[in-house]
């Protein structure tokens, strides 16, 4: 195997150098021809002037020769420019390929290795696959990294990803519009996170849907599950989740929360906030 490779490289190398030597020789010949042409022209003009020939004839001759010179050299210049840009784009392609390979190695291949190791644990495998899917997708869509400057939607997506990983229930985030995050909206994201956690922990739903809409000054978030449901009037007073972390938190930040659920029909938490509303 190793010797075959060595052989390959020894046969390939001389051929390549032979080609470039040939090319160099051709270029030299062309250069020589062009120089010869220039000398001949100069000589002809001098000769004509010395013999007192018409000045116009000399000009015409120079023009013809210049055209000839151009015809000879322009394609060469074009080819040179083209090969330069070809080389550059080839280099860029190579860089992109290397970057892609590096990324896939760090992410997808590692995850696939983990999945093979944990093949016996379906929940774990599904979680790994989903995390990888999310990561790869945000990379493909070239979104800025999640921990950069935050928007409402990116904060909600991050919260959803965290809850999903903690409780191993897929959370589908669908959003319309987006806007910058401020302290009140952070509180809203916190309430949404709590709603997602409740749905993932207690509902027994196969998945949780989160829908966020940022339209002008109004932000709305809906967290829905198809799980066991409950009677919102009968939340025990010691369950701080819904009362404090969702409803109370929204009200403290001049927002609104509504919990809709019935036993057997899943549940939905609706959060709304008007951004213009200041006190």
């Amino acid at each position: 195997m190793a010797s075959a490779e060595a052989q390959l490289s020894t046969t390939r190398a001389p051929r390549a150098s032979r080609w470039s030597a040939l090319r160099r020789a051709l270029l030299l010949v062309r250069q020589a021809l062009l120089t010869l042409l220039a000398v001949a022209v100069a000589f002809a003009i001098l000769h004509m002037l010395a013999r007192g020939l018409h000045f116009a004839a000399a000009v015409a001759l120079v023009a013809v020769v210049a055209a000839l010179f151009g015809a000879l050299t322009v394609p060469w210049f074009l080819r040179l420019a083209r090969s330069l840009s070809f080389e550059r784009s080839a280099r860029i392609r190579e860089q992109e390929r290397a970057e892609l390979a590096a990324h896939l190695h760090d992410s997808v291949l590692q995850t696939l290795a983990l999945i093979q190791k944990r093949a016996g644990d379906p929940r774990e495998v599904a979680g790994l696959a989903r995390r990888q899917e999310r990561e790869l997708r945000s990379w493909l869509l070239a979104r800025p990294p999640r921990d950069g400057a935050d928007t409402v939607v990116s904060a909600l997506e991050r919260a959803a990803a965290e809850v999903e990983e903690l409780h191993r229930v897929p959370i589908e985030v669908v959003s319309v519009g987006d806007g910058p995050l401020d302290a009140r909206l952070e509180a809203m994201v916190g309430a949404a996170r709590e709603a997602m956690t409740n749905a993932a922990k207690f509902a027994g739903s196969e998945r949780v849907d989160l829908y966020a809409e940022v339209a002008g000054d109004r932000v709305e978030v809906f967290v829905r599950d198809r799980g066991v449901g409950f009677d919102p009037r009968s939340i025990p007073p010691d369950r701080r989740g819904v009362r404090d972390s969702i409803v109370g938190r929204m009200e403290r930040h001049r927002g609104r929360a509504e919990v809709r659920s019935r036993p057997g029909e899943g549940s939905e938490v609706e959060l709304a906030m008007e951004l213009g509303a200041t006190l």
Partner: protein
Amino acid sequence: MSSCPRVVIVDDHHLFRAGVRAELAGAAEVVGDAGSVAQAVGVIAEQRPDVVLLDVHMPDGGGAEVIAQVAGAQPQVRFLALSVSDAPEDVIAVIRAGARGYVTKTISGAELAAAVRAVAEGDAVFSPRLAGFVLDAFAASGRWAGAKVRAQDRCEDAELDQLTPREREVLRHIARGYMYKEVAQRLGISVKTVEAHVSAVLRKLQLSSRHELSRWAVQRRIVSLDAPERDRLAGDARGLDRPAPAAP
């Protein structure tokens, strides 16, 4: 027509085609599959299926290209887009080409079978994600419609470029994760009416003036670029209906 819809699966991943085939067993009759646009056009012409499950992205053109080549000759074939791709502009492009719906590849087998049946019967299938994309697209085109578009254009497009409040409400419920039946219950209308609203939205999406939605697509693409590039492109897109800003 039998109760079991005849289906062709078009996807460039062999494993995925095999997986869908297994999931649909019993619910639909898979009469063929294809891994490229050219293959797909041949198989569809030969098999004349009820429904084609269509990948949004393929090496030689993707779902929109298949629809473009088949729809003219075989208007009875219905298309359902099925993809892992979440780029909204790509999904909307396939819908605008004529697909009757879009579901993501992570959908469960039972849900996929139900979606295939619905499309076979001529209904539109909106996943929460597609509903979100559509709301976003129309919200954006509404914003543009509010800008200085020539009065003549507005008269022609106004109805197609906007959703009615009811259509918006239906789409919002779908985006929130409600099924058609649940949407009907919540809004106090029949399932047929929900389906009619969704079909109307689909029709608007397909007929709406090209420039509004393509501008939305440009906007979407810019969001994922870096700031200077975004500003430059945004300037270009805006330049279409607004006077150029004065040089600083």
